[in-house]
């Protein structure tokens, strides 16, 4: 298992390198960092001075190499824009985004798993239709629109929840619902489909032929097999949430990496963009790796194939 993980990590590192090189060139093309650093209302001469001072006039490849060399030593540099250490900025912002992502996934799972199983238990039944409706609706719901509606409903009409910021857990309720709704349909579908497959499978028939009660058939035999795809999808969704919380953080004034990445992209704040890209890529890779390991624990056949 260790050497499997090592091999996976090696390919992961390569993936991350390519991703970071791509975003570096992209972000570099995206805007002249010199203009960004010089700031609004700066003169053309200011900009030219900054460009030369930071060496932005040199080939991108060299600049990427420099960045990479430093990044490898753990030095992500300073934000052009905020003048703060990128590592410090991320350290203060990551917990917000990560917490939000995890909360959203838990929210989605808490609805998706029971509902998906109940739906599969009686395909075509009332619960199944409701689940299908919910997943279709969730999939079609523009996240930012939902967020705005939530603000109107819970923030202003009912005044149950605080609207913006991250002071208390209540502040995370609306963003969690908005973001969780985005992740819900995929999880609900996979749970339903997986449970349906499992319930139709020969081994569930065997379990029923043993005289096992419906509960045990479901929890011991079916669910365990449903968990395997569910874990993979959850990992992918969590990765997507980390990268996709930009709009939500913007609306709820959460100072996470989503809001930061929006800001940094706008301002061609290369060190920040790079670090965030790197982190999102690393998260994606780690999450899929963790999902694989969890699945190997769940499914002996996967262990075997390693």
């Amino acid at each position, binding site marked *: 298992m260790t050497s499997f993980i090592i091999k996976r990590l090696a390919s992961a590192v390569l993936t991350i390198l390519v991703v970071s090189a791509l975003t570096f060139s992209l972000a570099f093309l995206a805007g002249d960092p010199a203009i960004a650093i010089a700031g609004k209302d700066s003169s053309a001469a200011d900009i030219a001075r900054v460009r030369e001072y930071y060496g932005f006039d040199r080939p991108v490849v060299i600049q990427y190499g420099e960045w990479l060399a430093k990044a490898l030593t753990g030095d992500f540099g300073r934000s052009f824009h905020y003048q703060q250490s990128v590592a410090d900025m991320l350290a203060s912002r990551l917990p917000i985004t990560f917490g939000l992502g995890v909360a959203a996934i838990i929210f989605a799972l808490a609805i998706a798993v029971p509902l998906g199983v109940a739906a599969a238990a009686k395909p075509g039944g009332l619960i199944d239709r409701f689940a299908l409706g919910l997943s279709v609706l969730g999939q079609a719901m523009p996240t930012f629109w939902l967020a705005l509606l939530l*603000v109107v409903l819970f923030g202003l009409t009912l005044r149950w929840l605080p609207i913006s910021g991250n002071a208390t857990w209540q502040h995370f309720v609306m963003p969690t619902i908005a973001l969780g709704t985005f992740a819900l349909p995929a999880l609900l579908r996979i749970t339903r489909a997986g449970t349906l497959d499992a319930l139709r499978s020969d081994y569930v028939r065997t379990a029923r032929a043993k005289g096992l009660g419906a509960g045990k058939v479901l929890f011991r035999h079916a669910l365990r097999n449903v968990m395997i795809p569910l874990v993979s999808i959850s990992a992918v969704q969590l990765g997507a949430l980390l990268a996709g919380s930009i709009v939500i953080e913007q*609306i709820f004034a959460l100072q996470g990496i989503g809001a*930061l990445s929006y800001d940094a992209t706008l301002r061609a704040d290369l060190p920040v963009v790079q670090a965030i890209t790197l982190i999102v890529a690393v998260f994606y890779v780690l999450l899929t790796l963790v999902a694989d390991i969890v699945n190997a624990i769940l499914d002996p056949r996967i262990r075997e194939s390693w």
Partner: protein
Amino acid sequence: MFRISSLIAGASLLALTATSAFADKNDDTLRIGWGGDGVMINADNYLGGTRTGIWFTKMVWDTLIERDNATGEYKGSLATAWQWVDDKTLELKLREGVSFHNGAEFGADDVVFTYNTMSAENSGARFRAIVDWIDHVEKVDAMTVRIHTKEPFPQALEFLSGPMPIYPHKYYAQVGSVGMSNKPVGTGPYKVVEMKPGEQYTLVRNDDYDWGSPKSKAKITNVIIREIPDAQTQVAELMSGGIDVTADMSPDLVTRLAGVPGLEAKMSETLRIFIIGLDAAKRANNPAVNDVRVRQALNYAIDRDGIVKNLMAGAARTLSTPCHPLQFGCSEEAAVKYPYDPEKAKALLAEAGFADGLDLTMYAEAPAKEAEAIMGNLAAVGVRVSLNRVPYEAYRDAQISGKAPAFLFNWGSYSLADASASISFFFKGGEDDFAQDKDVIEWLKTGDSVTDPAKRKEVYASAIGRITKEAYWIPLFSGVRGYAWDADLDFTPYADEIPRFYEYSWK
């Protein structure tokens, strides 16, 4: 869909009331929501250079001189007296008995350190222009300094009363800009309790602020400032009592919020001017805008009054000058006027050979809401604008690299009430001058270096006359800032776009 309809019902209900700030009044805490222009990136605003940074600076630090908002008169703040020793030397007497929040005594060393540090090449100061005029500062004695300028600099007093706060020299030397930003120390009416950069700042009244500053001692004990980038989130917070005041409201919102019981809202004109720059210097190599008749036609085509009346709630003024008329030397009489006259515009275009219309690429710095209205006006005279509304950086890139024959932008003159902060920046040659008019350059050089106010007025008037006659720009209108606040708060907006949060009190 039942949810939707209940939401609609809810939304119309909530238009009626706003939660009062009773609680805030009780704990004497002013909650400010800002961030519509982007977050305050660095409380050390020499390096940060944001609008909210200026507001924050006003609360936490002081400048040598303070300009009276009502009279425009310069009053001594950290300096008590000043005089020009010669063309390029300004001597200032400093105030005794002022101390910083950390207990350090204020003195000449602080002034010398702050200005010499910031005006140094590569100091990191975001806007060189603010400090670039200083050659060096010299300590005469413990309470006297001399500022030596590079060239004769008549606007010096305006600059010193602007965004040039004085920092405690030992502290700054020790912690640097980042340290200063994370734990600001000044002399101002508020002291910093906690900074969560980009998120929330907590301030408390400086009870020792009684050394005779022209700024008043703070009236409200606590201030909590939250960065909220989205206007609609600010509105929601305002109505639910999460914040007491915001300054990022659009004219439409101000109109609506003014009707909400428990809230007050008001538009206030700013020094900011909105402009369409035209590439008369052939950088974008667009023959159309190189033709003065086309430029004049474009000037005639825009219904400034209509836009100001309908989109800006009438709170802005229409512009004929390449500077704000409130700025010193910005003479409206000198400007050639282009009243709204689509027929004349069409005729001029036809004369220039564009009878069948004209395709024009325009870059604008997002969000630039007014762009659409302008495009509508231009379309009416046959100018088909393809708009590239992009973030500031991309806009600036396109403009500098000559990709933009027309560029819609706004200019805040660093809040300096002097025409040079606008005209000289854009028409004195150099890369940002898209006219490169030799005469104008000469006039501005004179105006920026002579100290005689009458002479300055005269040359700026000549420049304004030429710039408008040649229609290098399309001056549009002045900016407005929309404020909304809890009715329990006694709040007054100021024309220089700087709310004095220390002056406000509960009713």
